[in-house]
């Protein structure tokens, strides 16, 4: 590809090449569906121009099957493509369990990334090639959208909830990363790059990059600083749920029903504790919505996730 003009984006994953194949094949289909219209309009406009002699006698009967066929055949072809595309899309919702999890915080107008061992970076994301990576994303303010054209992937980052996106990049290199959802004045400069590295280089990069503490360790400090431990410590006299081994366990609710204690539930319980109260506990927890920012919430959630169950044996 020349520097003068780009005509096709680079591809950095098997998934992105599949999307290219899908759109290529689909383009062939739509050209085939529309070509008759374009050609026939021009042909008819020439051949049957007003005043020009031509055979204009119509067959006495309408060909109903012709009409049905030009509705039905395109529809069936489209259904085929619908299945193909939806199948590809569904894969985006099923990340491999062993995926490397990187936390992402979006705010006006920057991207902050935190690797599992605590390495942080801004507007630049280093990932190993050939390994699945899952981004868990939260927004500090408005809706943003993480867009990596070379991966053909994009996911809105919405305040008030976690969204995620996963990929396996396979070609080392530096790729553009952008915000795709309009987010205010400097939307168009809220970009950066994704650096895909050989796994060995990635490991070296992790080592070289200063790491203070892991997310979970920072969360443990916050857990004491903000007074969470006063109630949730197993030794506490206050009747509050024990958090050890809580992550991904079903929690019976006071209001009836059960929820799985996933990241979203943990987050909501910190910020909106009155919304879903665990059965058998008094509704005494105050909200931390105005005390913690998104990054601190992520750290606390990481800490709670890291607490292995004492009673639970798996």
């Amino acid at each position, binding site marked *: 590809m020349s520097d003068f003009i*780009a005509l096709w984006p680079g591809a950095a994953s098997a998934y992105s090449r599949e999307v290219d194949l899908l759109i290529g094949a689909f383009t062939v289909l739509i050209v085939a569906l529309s070509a008759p219209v374009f050609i026939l309009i021009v042909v*008819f406009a020439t051949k*049957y121009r007003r*005043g020009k002699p031509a055979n204009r006698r*119509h067959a006495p009967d309408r060909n109903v099957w012709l009409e049905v066929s*030009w509705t039905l055949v395109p529809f069936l072809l489209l259904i085929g493509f619908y299945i193909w595309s939806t199948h590809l*899309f569904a894969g985006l919702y099923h990340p491999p369990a062993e995926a490397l999890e990187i936390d992402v915080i979006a705010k006006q107008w920057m991207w902050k990334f935190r690797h599992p061992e605590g390495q942080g970076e801004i507007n630049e994301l280093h990932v190993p090639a050939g390994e699945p990576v899952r981004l868990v994303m939260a927004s500090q303010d408005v*809706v943003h959208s993480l867009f990596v054209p070379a991966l053909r992937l994009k996911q809105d980052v919405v305040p008030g909830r976690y969204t995620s996106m996963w990929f396996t990049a396979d070609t080392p290199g530096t790729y553009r990363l952008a915000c795709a959802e309009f987010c205010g004045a400097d939307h168009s400069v809220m970009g950066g790059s994704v650096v895909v590295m050989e796994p060995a280089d990635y490991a070296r990069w992790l080592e070289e990059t200063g790491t203070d503490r892991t997310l979970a360790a920072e969360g443990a400090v916050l857990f004491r600083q903000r007074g969470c431990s006063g109630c949730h410590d197993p030794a506490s006299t206050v009747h509050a749920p024990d958090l050890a081994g809580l992550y991904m366990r079903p929690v019976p609710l006071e209001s009836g029903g059960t929820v799985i204690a996933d990241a979203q539930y943990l987050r909501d319980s910190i910020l909106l504790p009155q919304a879903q109260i665990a059965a058998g506990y008094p509704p005494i927890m105050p909200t931390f919505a105005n005390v913690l920012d998104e990054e601190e919430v992520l750290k606390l959630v990481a800490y709670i996730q890291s607490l292995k169950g004492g009673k639970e044996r798996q």
Partner: protein
Amino acid sequence: MTLQERPDRENLADTGLSETPAERVSYLRAGHTLKSWLLTTDHKRIAILYLISITFFFFVGGAAAALVRLDLLTPAGDLLSNEGYNRAFTLHGVIMVWFFLIPSIPNTFGNFLLPLMIGARDLAFPRLNLLSWYIFMLAGLLTLAVLILGGVDTGWTFYTPLSSMFAHGQVVLAATAVFVAGFSSILTGLNFIVTVHKLRCPGMTWGRLPLFVWSIYATSLILVLATPVLSITLALIAAERLFGLGVFDPAVGGDPLLYQHLFWFYSHPAVYIMVLPALGVVSELVAAAARKPIFGYAFVAGSSMAIAVLGFFVWGHHMFVSGQSMYASAVFSFLSIAVAIPSGVKVYNWTATLYKGHISLDPPFLFAMAFIGLFVVGGLTGLILAMLAVDVHVHDTYFVVAHFHYIMVGGAVSAFFGALHFWWPKMFGRRYSLVWGRLSALLIFLGFNLTFFPQFLLGYLGMPRRYHVYPPEFQVLHVLSSAGAGILGLAYLMPFAYLFYALRYGPPAGDNPWGVTGLEWQTRSPPPKHNFDAVPVVDGPPYDYHVEMEGDEDG
């Protein structure tokens, strides 16, 4: 079709027809004072009022687009500041959507033609019709106030919590303007629905309605059913911004996705408000150009209704990457494919109508051809966007920008110009230069494609929309697009020159300059104040042209 006399021809008050001699000459002669225009209840004069106002807004919105395209000539943002650029594209979107596209064909040509086409002397509620124009102008003035007070920078979509809690501009005022404009839409829609139900002349059965009337009817249903949802949503934004009522911002207990659902529940059907009337116009133009009945009248009329109904169930395709459920996305993707079918039926039926016709290459037909070409590209790229895996990549990029401009500008605006060229002789009684008309149709088609086709490539390359600053490798395509916009701008200005010239110097048009069917062509050009000298009676199908059949004597 024949014109039949009512019993008491002498008593004009009884027949409800034009009373004074001046009124009987033409609606344009029935009063020359400013008051006779500003307080008129004549649907034709109100149509002209709308035509003037939306043309004004078209130029305001076009000026904003020109700023945007000029700024995008270079990758760095050097003409405007980031903030200024955001205000420019927001203004472009708000004005073009609510103050040009939505009222464009329904409120001008719908207003002018609907009573004429069904043989009525006016709309069902003439004073409501005038009120609707005043409300529209009030909303327009509020929008201009937004512009003067510094603008708004949320994009026309007003996404929360950006709009409700973070943006600095005149969000509440802009939302109020759109809120007010909504009432104009609702009143007009209601007026059209009642008119079609109650004021059809004798013999004008539902199966004999011109296809333009069918499409305006379908559009009116959407106007009445969808607009209130937008109004409520905008009111909620104002409530959250002014009083901190937690509806959409999670920081105060709201949900930003709720906003997107509500907004698109209106705004997707709104696309059909813009394009359905255009489809109706093109059906008229194609039949007139080919001098043949529309192929499969019932299918074409039914497809308008099908689009209006299905259009309410596809809004979620704007939200495939928003974080909505995977299953919701799969359903919306499927329904979006389904809505393409009635549109496809129309296109194929128009093509079939041309088969063995007597096709004239006058300007209205060239605009119709331009419409079909651009609408097909816009529609098929819409199918690409309905494919989930592809949309994840091209969502919120220039691919989407190109797609909806093909539908809303290439489609709706081409049809608007087609309608203007087709019915201009009827509206003003003058012919215009056909040569200039053909030339502008051609230039609009070429300029449009040069502007927007490169944007499909930009989108797939990963150029996000609403970007002031962009990577240098995209510059060549942006320069092509801006060059096309220059041609397109000039091409849009051209008709104003020769149409205005024709207004004064054009030769008289005669009642039926194109030699076509339809009640509006049976009265004078321009029509008398109350449209017909006698109440028309319809006794045949629409588009009742002679068709040579095999075995006929002649031909």
